[in-house]
């Protein structure tokens, strides 16, 4: 299963101009068959990119916020993964504390942004982000 996934990634040459030569060395842990840090980083990278695409493509303000939540989750996953594979003794907990902070900040951001969205809706009767251009020069 792992080999087929990496084969899928390798089959996209525009993403990996120099990927083919280095793959076996860099992803040796993946070749051994166990899940390593690289796998978590790939999951996080894909979620992050999807979040960015959602933010740019969708016009509904709440959908844009969902993209931001996806970005924050990807960042939190990265912190936990790096901490789990860190050399520092007890380091696994440090990354998780940072992710707790990320979750708190995401909660604050969601509450504030939704309040702003409600206000925009009551003033302009829409939540399309490109309709709210009153400050545009």
């Amino acid at each position, binding site marked *: *299963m*792992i080999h087929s996934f990496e084969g899928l*990634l390798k089959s996209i040459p*525009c*993403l*990996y101009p120099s*990927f083919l030569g*280095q*793959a076996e060395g860099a992803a040796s842990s993946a070749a051994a068959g*166990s899940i*390593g840090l*690289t*796998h*978590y980083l790939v*999951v*996080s*990278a894909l*979620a992050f*990119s*999807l979040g960015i*695409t*959602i*933010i*740019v*493509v*969708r*016009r*509904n303000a709440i*959908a844009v*916020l*969902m*993209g931001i*939540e996806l970005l924050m*989750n990807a960042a*939190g*996953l990265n912190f*936990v993964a790096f901490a*789990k*594979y*860190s050399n520092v003794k*007890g380091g*696994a*907990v440090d990354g*998780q*504390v940072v*992710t707790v*902070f990320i*979750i708190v900040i*995401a*909660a*604050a951001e*969601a509450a*504030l942004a*939704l*309040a702003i*969205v*409600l206000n925009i809706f*009551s*003033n302009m009767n829409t939540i*399309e982000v490109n309709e709210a251009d009153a400050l545009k020069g």
Partner: protein
Amino acid sequence: MQGSEGYHNLMFWIFAATAVLPGLGILIAKDIVRQAFWLLLSLVGFACLYLLMGADFLGFTQVVVYIGGILILFLFGVMLTHRTDVPLKEVRGWNLVVPGIVGGLLSAAALLHVAYRTEWNTEASAVEPTTSAIGQKVMSTYLLPFEIVSILLLVALVGATYIARRGGEKGESE
């Protein structure tokens, strides 16, 4: 041992698919409520990945805060901004689809490049109960960030209440 490793790998792929693939659903789904439920699936996937990495406290915090709090907030937002005269769909800005996809692919390329080309440490630390350790860290090493983030949360929530309420009052007076 080999069997448990295979089980772990299988769980990882299932959880990774649960975390990433709903992103496509959020991107494609037309109905905003369907998007919210795709986001629910994605958040469950992330919580499962946290649990798989031995971050038990984080996994449950993710479920309680994200799914129990933020997602409900989103659904409230959807309901409060729902216009009954138009169907609950959005006009998509087609002019931004190509830049969005190009930007997403570029960021994916950069991040995957770093993820694959760096020699990461592959030694996983042992799985231990994390809740008391996180509590001690928060109360000792990370005391100042903890207090700052508490104040930030308080200020943000009071501000959110104020902003949302002022809009309602203005709506009543007009």
